[in-house]
C-alpha cells in the first residue's frame, strides 16, 4: 500500500484556517452574504424608476448587479487563498477537529 505523502502525515495540529485568520474570514463572510442579500431582498430594486437609459430600474439593477457579483466573488477567491497554503500543498495537513 502506497504511503500517503509526507505532508499529510505532519501531525502539527494547526488550527483551522478560519480560526487562524478571523479578519479575512469575517470579510469573506460579509462579502458573500452581501452578494446574496443584494438580490434576495427584492424591495431594494422592485420598481420602475429611476430609469437608467431606457431600462426601468428593476431590469437595470438585475443586469448591473451580475458583474458586481463576479468581481466581489473574485475578491473572495483571492482572499480564500490567504486562508490556506497555496495550491500545490495539501491544505491543513493532518488537522483533525477536536
Amino acid at each position: 500500500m502506497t504511503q500517503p505523502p509526507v505532508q499529510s502525515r505532519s501531525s502539527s495540529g494547526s488550527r483551522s484556517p478560519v480560526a487562524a485568520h478571523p479578519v479575512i474570514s469575517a470579510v469573506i463572510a460579509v462579502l458573500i452574504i452581501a452578494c446574496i442579500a443584494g438580490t434576495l431582498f427584492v424591495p431594494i430594486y422592485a420598481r420602475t424608476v429611476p430609469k437608467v437609459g431606457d431600462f426601468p430600474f428593476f431590469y437595470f439593477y438585475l443586469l448591473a448587479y451580475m458583474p458586481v457579483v463576479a468581481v466581489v466573488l473574485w475578491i473572495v477567491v483571492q482572499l480564500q487563498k490567504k486562508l490556506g497554503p497555496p495550491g500545490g500543498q495539501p491544505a491543513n495537513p493532518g488537522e483533525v477537529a477536536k
Partner: protein
Amino acid sequence: MSDVNVTTFTIVVILFVIVTGVGFAAVRWRRAEDMLHLNEWGLGGRGFGTFVTWFMLGGDVYTAYTYIAVPALVFGSGSIGFFAVSYTIMVYPIIIIFLPRLWSVSRVHNYITPSDFIRGRYGSRGLSLASAFTGIIALMPYIALQLVGIQAVLTVMGVGTTSNNTFIKDLPLFIAFLVLAVFTYVSGLRAPAAISFIKDTLVYVMVIVAVFYIPTRLGGWGHIFGTAEAHFTSINPATKKPYGTFVPTSGVTGSTQLDFATLALGSAIALFLYPHTITGTLAAKRRYVVRRNTALLPIYSILLGLIALLGYMAITDKTTAAEVKKAGNAQLAVPYLFQHMFSPWFAGVAFAAIIIGALVPAAIMAIAAANLFTRNIFTEFFKPDASPRLQTKVSQWASFVVKIGALYFAVELPHTFAINLQLLGGVWILQLGPMLIGGLFTRWFDRYALLLGWLAGMAFGTIAAYKSASPTVSHWASSSDIEFGHTVYIGLSALIINLVIAVILTVIFRAAKVPQGADETLPHQYTADPADLPAPTPVGIGLGAAEAGTAGAGTAGDLSRGRPAPLPDGVHAPGPLPDGVHAPAPSGAGAKNIDGRHMTIGHLGNGLPSCVEGIASLQ
C-alpha cells in the same frame, strides 16, 4: 417539410454534423489509458482545468430549457420570469460556500456521485439510495425538456410537422437524439465538454447579436419596455386580472416580491444539488478550479439576463406575439422571434445554438443519472464486486436507457406533463439539501432523521404542486402556492419542513442513542487539494479504493483481491488504509463543526424555470 427555409435548414444541419464529429473525436481528447473506467467515462479523467471547466459548466447549467423557457415565462407572465436572473446571480455566492468542500472530499475518496458522498459520510445505504433515486427522477424530466426545447425549434423551422405519424413527425428529433446517445456512449463526459466550446460560442454570438440588433428593428429598448409594461398592466378579459406584472408586486399573493425571492433562492440552492452540475464540478482538476469558476461563471449569467429580455422583444414584435398566441405555446416565442428578426442564415446559426445547447446538458445529465444508477443502485445493491470496467459498461448502457426514457417523455406525453415533472424535479432535488449541503459541514444530523425529513419534504412538495390550481388549470398550475397567506415557492416550504423534521428527530434519536453509522471522511479532507488523480486507471479492479470501500463488506473482499490501489487520495489522513476499510472517524461528536464553519441553512427552496405559469396565462 414544405415551408422549410433551405438556408436556415442547411446551416443547422452543417453545424449539427460538425458537433457530431467533435463528439466522436472527443474520445481521443486527453486520451485515457483505459476509457473503461468510470473516472474516465463518467468524469472525463477528473482533469479539467479552469478554462475547460468554465465552458463545460456553462454549457451544463444553461440549457436549452433556459433559452426557451425563461423567455417563455417572461413572455407569458412578465417580471416573475426574471427570478431566473436573480437566481443565477445568487447561485454563485451560495456554491462558493459548499462546492469546494464537496470537490475535496470527493477527490480524496474518489466519489463519483453525490450519493457516494452521502454513503461515505453517513454510512447509510438507505440515505444513499434515497438521494440517488431523487437525482434520477429529477433528471429524467429535465432531459425530456431539452428535447422539448429542440422540438420548439424544429416546429418553427417547419421540419417534420406535416405528418400525423408520430415517428415521421419526430424523425429529426430521433436522429438528433440517437446521435447524442451514441457519442455519449462512446466518449463519455469528454463529448459534452468538447462540444460545449462550440455551444457556448454559438450561444454568445446569438445572444449578443440578438440584444444589439433586434431592438434596432423594434424601435429601441424604450419602446420594448413600454410595450411590455402596457401589456402586463392591462386587464385580461378572461381572468379579470392583469396579464402579468412588470415588476414584482409588494402584495401578499400573486407574483409578489416574496414569491420572486423564494423562487430565486430555492432554485439557486437546488442548481448545484442536481447530479449533472455536480458531475461537471467533480471533473475539475483541482480545488482552485472550482473556486475560480464560481467567480467566472457569473459572466454567463449576464447572458441569461439578456436572454430573458427576449421575452419582451417577442411581445413587442406583433407578428411573433400573434403567432405564439395562435400556436398557444409560449415555448415558441424565442424561435419565432429569431425567425422573423434574423436573416435566414443567421436564424440557422441561432437555431443550431439552441439545439446544440440542448444536447450538451442532456448528455451530461444522462451521464450523471447513469453514474447514480451504476454506483448507488447497481453496484451497491446488486453487484458489490463490480469491477470498474463493468461499472463503466453499465453506466454506458444506463445512459442510453435514460435517454430513451426521456425521449418517450418528450414524444408521447403532453408537454405540459413534462414541464410539470420538471417543476416537481426542482422541488424534489431541493430535498437533498440537508443531507448533502448539511453533510458537508456537520455530522450532527442523524441519518434516519435525514431520511424521514427527506420523505416529508418529498411528500409535501409533490402534494402541494399537485394541488396548485389556476383559473385555467386545476392541477400543477404553478411552482408556488400560498402558505400562511403569502405566495411562496413550494420547494422552499418543503425544504423547511424537511429541515425542521430532520432537526427535531436528530435531537430525539441522539437522546435515544440510536447508532450513528460510520463516517469514513475526516475533517481535513473537506479542504484537501490533492494534485494526483485518485487511482488514475487501475485497470480492472480496485478502482478508487475508497469509493469501493464505501460499498461495504463485499467490496472489501474485492479490494483485498485487487492489487494495492495506487493511493487514491493525495492527502490521506493518518489512517493507514486509504481504502475500503477506513477506520471510521468518530461519528457524531467528533466530526461536527468542521473547521469552525457551521452551515446554517435558514431557508431554502427551489424551482427551476417553471414556465407553467407562463403557459397557464396563455391558455
